[in-house]
């Protein structure tokens, strides 16, 4: 890849470089809503019911596309750009002879990001918030901002291994139960006398099986729906323990590694000039083909062999996989995310839809505002204290709404940036970081 970069040595203007990054960020930001919208608008049992079948509904097709093509990829891309943005932030700022160092601004900024994340989770009531854990990941990234590309790839790999290890550890438990069950059944067939442990293994697996067959507990599902359609205070108290759980266990066991993997990868790719439009067209084409060509089939298979099979026949699923199919998660989404980025840059270079690319860049420039705006719009539309559309739509119908939000954000961002230098939340964030009101008007 380096040789190709050398073939195209013309330095890209700073403005141009930032533009492609903003564009990709805008794209990822809009894409994130694809994954978040079910969380905002539909009861969780929807997943189970749709995956169970029949498999010729609009809902199922939508879910297949979302599950195999988009799942995790938009967040992945967003994380990559967060890593790249970290390098940009520290590079663009000059160390001043007196006054706070760049490190101080950087860590203040991240601490505020953590606070914004908590605001998003506890006040705006979006339990799927990512800002909180981005803040923590960012605090680790700082010391690696000057590391070379090889190291960054290695770090991304190590973080991915941690996720894999944790996923496998989680899978070992049901898998172990299944094995114990099968051994006990075999022993019973051989008409041996069963030990208490073997009897326990049989009964505990059967219990799990019947639980799986029943699907999500209607008691919880009804309570969830009832709560989400009620007032602010009720939803607030309902989410407190869940938000706490995701900001503690979620961060510690999953999100931290999930974020770091892609952030390190993003920093490495940024180092190669990937996001800043510095590679040759043929390189982008190649990586588009590799990313999509390998990532999508894996995604489709993982979806069919993963959630679909799990619900259709959990026994078969447990028998088939010694290693959980989740192990491939980061590989798949890394590939597809890279594919997304290549596709966008190629479209940008071909100049087919410059207006759309500009609009995406605008969305990306206001990514922080737009992210929080999605929480505000969606909670108000779906939750009980707003319009209360929670669980009233079918799964695929949610995506009409997503489309509407996209159009809205594309237009509003473009208009806003005509008059102002930053989005409103960016302005607030900046002002808090520098602890001084920042000029906003153009």
């Amino acid at each position: 890849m380096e040789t190709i970069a050398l073939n195209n040595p013309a330095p890209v203007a700073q403005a141009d470089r930032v533009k492609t990054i903003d564009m990709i960020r805008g794209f990822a930001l809009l894409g994130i809503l694809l994954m978040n919208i079910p969380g905002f608008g539909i009861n969780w049992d929807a997943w189970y019911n749709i995956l169970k079948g029949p498999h010729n509904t609009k809902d199922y097709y939508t879910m297949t596309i979302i599950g195999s093509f988009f799942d995790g990829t938009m967040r992945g891309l967003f994380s990559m750009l967060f890593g790249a943005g970290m390098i940009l932030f520290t590079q663009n700022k000059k160390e001043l002879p007196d006054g706070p160092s760049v490190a101080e601004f950087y860590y203040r900024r991240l601490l505020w990001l953590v606070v914004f994340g908590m605001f998003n989770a506890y006040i705006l009531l979006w339990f799927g918030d990512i800002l909180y854990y981005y803040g923590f990941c960012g605090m680790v990234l700082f010391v690696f901002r000057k590391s070379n590309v090889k190291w960054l790839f290695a770090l991304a790999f190590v973080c991915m291994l941690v996720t894999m290890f944790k996923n496998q550890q989680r899978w070992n438990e049901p898998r172990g139960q299944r094995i114990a069950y099968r051994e006990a059944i075999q022993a019973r067939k051989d008409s041996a006398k069963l030990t208490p442990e073997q009897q326990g293994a049989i009964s505990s697996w059967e219990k799990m099986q019947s639980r799986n067959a029943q699907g999500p507990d209607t008691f919880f599902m009804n309570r969830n729906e009832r709560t989400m359609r009620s007032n602010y205070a009720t939803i607030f108290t309902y989410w407190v323990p869940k938000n706490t759980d995701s900001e503690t266990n979620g961060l510690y066991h999953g999100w931290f590694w999930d974020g770091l993997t892609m952030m390190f990868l993003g920093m490495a790719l940024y180092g190669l000039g990937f996001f800043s439009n510095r590679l040759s067209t043929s390189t982008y084409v190649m990586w588009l083909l590799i990313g999509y060509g390998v990532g999508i089939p894996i995604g489709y298979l993982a979806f069919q062999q993963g959630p679909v099979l799990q619900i259709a026949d959990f026994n078969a699923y447990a028998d088939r996989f010694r290693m959980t199919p989740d192990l491939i998660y980061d590989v798949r989404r890394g590939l597809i995310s890279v594919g997304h980025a290549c596709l966008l840059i190629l479209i940008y270079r071909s100049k087919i839809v410059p207006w759309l690319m500009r609009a995406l860049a605008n969305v990306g420039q206001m990514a922080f505002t737009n992210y929080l705006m999605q929480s505000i719009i969606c909670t108000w539309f779906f939750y009980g204290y707003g319009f209360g559309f929670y669980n009233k739509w079918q799964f695929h119908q949610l995506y009409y709404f997503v489309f509407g939000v996209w159009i809205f954000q594309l237009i509003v961002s473009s208009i806003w940036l005509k008059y102002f230098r930053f989005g409103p939340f960016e302005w607030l964030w900046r002002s808090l970081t520098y602890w001084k009101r920042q000029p906003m008007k153009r």
Partner: protein
Amino acid sequence: MSYQPAGTGTPTAVPVSLNDSENRLFSLDVLRGLAILGILVISIWEFGGFSLNEQTRLRLLHKGLDYSLFGHIIIFFEGKMKALFALVFGTGMMLYLTRPNQFTLPQTHEYYIRRQLWLMAFGIIAAFAILWPGDILFHLGVMGILLFPFARMSRKGLLIAALICTVIYCGKMFWNYADDKKALRKYSVSKKLEEKFKKDSTERHRKDSMAGMPVDSIKVRDSIGKKNDTLTRQQKEDKEKWEGITKRVKYDSTKASEKAEKEAMRSGYGKVWNHLLRRSQEKESVWFYKTGFWEFGSLIFLGMALFGFGYFNSSFSKNKYLLFGITGIVIGFLLGWWRLELVHDKIPDYEKYIKGHAIPPNQFFPIENIVMTFGYVSLVLWLIRINILKWLWKGLNAVGRMAFTNYFIQIIFCTCFFYGYGFGYFGRLSQREMYFLVIEIWLVQTVFSVLWLRFYHYGPVEWLWRWLIYAKRFPNKKKTV
């Protein structure tokens, strides 16, 4: 003292030696040494399997010398030594960021962050390789990063921040208690309902049999009655929630959980690892988020503020130190005493306790902690200043300068001594034997530290730490001597 950038200019390479002994504060190292030794007084409970839960306190209740020892330790040590360590950490943090050195400000900050990240890494080793679930290095590392942006705050601001953390920490105690109260209320409702159902069904049965109904129809009526007479899922959940809470508090005469714990801790490395994994993870995630942040935060902020006031440079008059010291310790003692009294009421019957008390026993524990720790700090500073017990301060100073090494020696020794893959003394020592051991460890550590520092600049782990931070090996041997 306000925040001074440590000089700017062209970046320089890492100097050959970073001997900062001139910049160390003698009294700060004494306090650090005191903290590292003192921490063992409490952590030995967990190492040795002494305090598996609050049951221990019940068993020791009103039993002569053992109880009196235990009570004093609860009042004078529980939480305070960890707090002292955090306070010193906060001061050390400011010292690192502001002391004059060869680096530019950005470089200092870069090394500062690396330092914290390595501290976290050492904490992870302590928790998951040496198997010490009570580790605090990880937490201090994270706190050092989170509170880094506050280094420029005024000393008054820092004091207010410490106060806010303390108040929130108190608030958390109260909210947790309120949750328990709520759980009990819901439990009582469900419980009453259940009793009524039972009565109804017996009543029905009695009536039926008196009426001489045939057995079959009794069965039918019974099943209909039962259907209306069962708790809903929600009610059942309410009931189980409270039962879960009391289970933790109640004295278990079968000692089943204790036995299981002992068995697990007396087995091989793999088993102990598995057994402690969840606990260590919980400590680094949930506990940190809910409690640790506020506990450490209040003390670190206080340490930062005291640095700003020049408290460790004897910037106040002698008498003030004595006054602060005595006031702090007396207030802390009274609060601790009260807490202990409330604990006595709580353990035998938590339900009764909730009905009779508006606050939990540990309601003011955060205040007790911070006030008493401040008292200790002041008293030690006073004692150093009036120039008595010099040998003691010298010894503690050496321990403090090698605090990191001593911490690791403690946990390596204790895990090997108590856990099954070592000597397996877990749960086998009485309280008095345990504290005999603690005193032995203290003596050995002090002597070792004094001797080591005669020949070397830094303790081995400190030396390694610096190597990792600056990516450079420093000569450690002292030339003279």
